[in-house]
């Protein structure tokens, strides 16, 4: 089985799926000859031509809106790239008011099979506006799928799953994982279903619920705790809307303790929702407070190195929180 990193998995899947389905077209800033600022679309313009890999004006509102208009016809399945998740907000109204509500407001007469890809997350000296985690805003919106795959296997499988849906999907890729995370990604056709979390590591003492880069750090921290005799179960949510309630609740019922870890700022976040879910539906099984670990509740990752380091999560910080909760 091929070993590749996240960006390679993404690129390969885009290419394979475009070869298979002529309705797929890619649009975005610099996705053409340049191949994307992170090289997600490298070679695709050359292979598929300017009618299927379209460099757009610098205007996210209309990148998403024209994607909606293309999708509505049924002629095409657009995958649009937002260059950095931080720049998705000009398109917020189009995503919320149009893409997410089209099916509901027309009783499925019109649907928007649109994939919006966006690199998010910090740790790459991107400062306030090239580092943001933006998933909370979208996870609040009925009508959207929101996913954050973080392994090559999942990127492949979830992109394929997204392409099979007739609904809009927000496809968030932690940019720091693009080259950092390597793993197996089978050649053959497979999908990773939406709404299914993965258990990355089993354990009986404590459940960690995470996603993205923080999930990888959580696995490392769990390894440290294992050496200390504490069994930590690490759940990778993968899909942030809809949440995989069964997997979350089953694990918490088993361990009785839960630590929620993500890079997004804490207030009104995906972590809040996971905590609320557990507090309501697994209350009787809890042996300790529903604990959250996130960066501080500040606008986003500061540029300056020492601040960025202090902001970002890492295995040590997570292990510390695990220890405290395990000792509760």
């Amino acid at each position, binding site marked *: 089985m091929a070993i590749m990193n996240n960006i390679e998995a993404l690129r390969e899947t885009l290419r394979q799926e475009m070869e298979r389905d002529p309705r797929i077209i890619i649009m975005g800033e610099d996705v053409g000859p340049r191949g994307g600022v992170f090289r997600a679309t490298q070679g695709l313009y050359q292979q598929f031509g300017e009618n299927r890999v379209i460099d757009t004006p610098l205007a996210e509102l209309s990148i998403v*809106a024209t994607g909606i208009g293309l999708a509505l016809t049924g002629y095409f399945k657009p995958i649009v790239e937002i260059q950095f998740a931080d720049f998705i907000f000009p398109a917020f109204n189009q995503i919320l008011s149009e893409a997410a509500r089209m099916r509901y407001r027309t009783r499925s007469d019109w649907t928007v099979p649109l994939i919006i890809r966006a690199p998010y997350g910090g740790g790459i000296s991107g400062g306030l506006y090239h580092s943001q985690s933006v998933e909370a805003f979208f996870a609040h919106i009925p009508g959207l799928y929101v996913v954050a795959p973080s392994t090559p296997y999942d990127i492949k499988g979830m992109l394929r799953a997204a392409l099979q849906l007739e609904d809009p999907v927000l496809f968030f890729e932690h940019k720091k994982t693009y080259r950092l995370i390597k793993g197996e990604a089978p050649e053959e056709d497979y999908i990773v279903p939406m709404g299914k979390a993965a258990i990355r590591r089993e354990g009986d003492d404590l459940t960690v619920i995470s996603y993205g880069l923080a999930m990888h750090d959580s696995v490392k921290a769990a390894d440290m705790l294992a050496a200390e005799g504490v069994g930590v179960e690490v759940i990778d949510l993968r899909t942030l809307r809809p949440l995989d309630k069964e997997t979350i609740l089953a694990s918490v019922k088993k361990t009785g303790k839960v630590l929620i870890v993500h890079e997004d700022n804490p207030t009104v976040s995906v972590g809040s929702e996971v905590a609320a879910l557990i507090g309501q539906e697994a209350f009787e099984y809890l042996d300790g407070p529903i604990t959250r670990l996130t960066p501080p509740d500040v606008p986003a990752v500061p540029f300056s190195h020492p601040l960025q380091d202090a902001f970002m999560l890492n295995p040590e910080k997570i292990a510390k929180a695990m220890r405290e909760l395990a000792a509760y």
Partner: protein
Amino acid sequence: MASAARNSTKTKPSGRPSDQLTDAQLLKMYKTMVLSRKLDERSWVMNRQGRAPFHISGIGHEAIQVAAAETLRPGYDWFYPYYRDLAFVLAMGMKPVDHMLGLLGKAGDPSSGGIQMPSHFSNAKLRIGSISSPVATQVPIAAGTALASKLKGVDEVTVVCLGEGSTSQGDFHEGLNWAGVHKLPFICIVQNNQYAISVPVEKEMAVKNVADRAAAYGIKGVVVDGNDVLVCYDVMVEAVERARRGEGATLVEAKTYRVTPHSSDDDDRTYRSREEVEYWKQRDPILLFENVLFERGILTEDLKREIEDWAIAEVDKAEEEAVNAPYPDVSEMYEHLYGPAPNWEE
């Protein structure tokens, strides 16, 4: 009303596209305008009687709408309306009862099954796109649809409507920019009724004509008297032909006037004079069209009355049908959030 009669009244053999309209077509257009007007007036009455919570009116806008529709192929071309496009959607094939069902929030409302407010038209079979309330969002969406036709290599045209006030939104700018960059088969009709609710056009923009904005996008801009159905038709024929031939987009500005309050929640006496409204009532597009039809001998007082009676009867029927139609079941609220997921569990 034989074609001879029509030819005899053809005062200007100017080669205008509207000269080619047959009497039957002209009468059909007239009838649609009258039908829309009666339906609209009835909606006001029902609102004032407390039987419909909300109505937003297209009265005064019928000429450009019916003219534009006459130049399109319903079910082939794509149309993104706005909330005043009652006459437009009727001309494209929607029925009076469709509007009435929406007005009352009934299950059978084909636009949204009672989910949306009235006049938020949609009809997938007729390729009438669904509109939301936030204004101007439909413009870049329509550009995307036009791009789809172009990429697919079919000669469909996409038409999108909005009010002049809504051209202040970024969505308008971005949509027209795409139409220019990709030379899209795209027509944007701005129905300039001189107000955005209470805000007069001078506070919305510093240009005299919205059509002047076309130059910013490398597309064609045309100003037309939106109350004169025949010149509207002329302008639209040209725009549609250009679009179909792959020659690019047009921004059509139809100057008109909203003779009613903005909506049933508005009171327009707080911001404009009765004289101004009266002036425009004299320029009613139906009145103007009638003059032409009378002049050409196509319409007579009798026929006019006949058409009005027909229209009122249609509206009566639509109202009755809608009143008797069921409300959506409460379970509907939970439906249509997502499509069925493929069978992924192997």
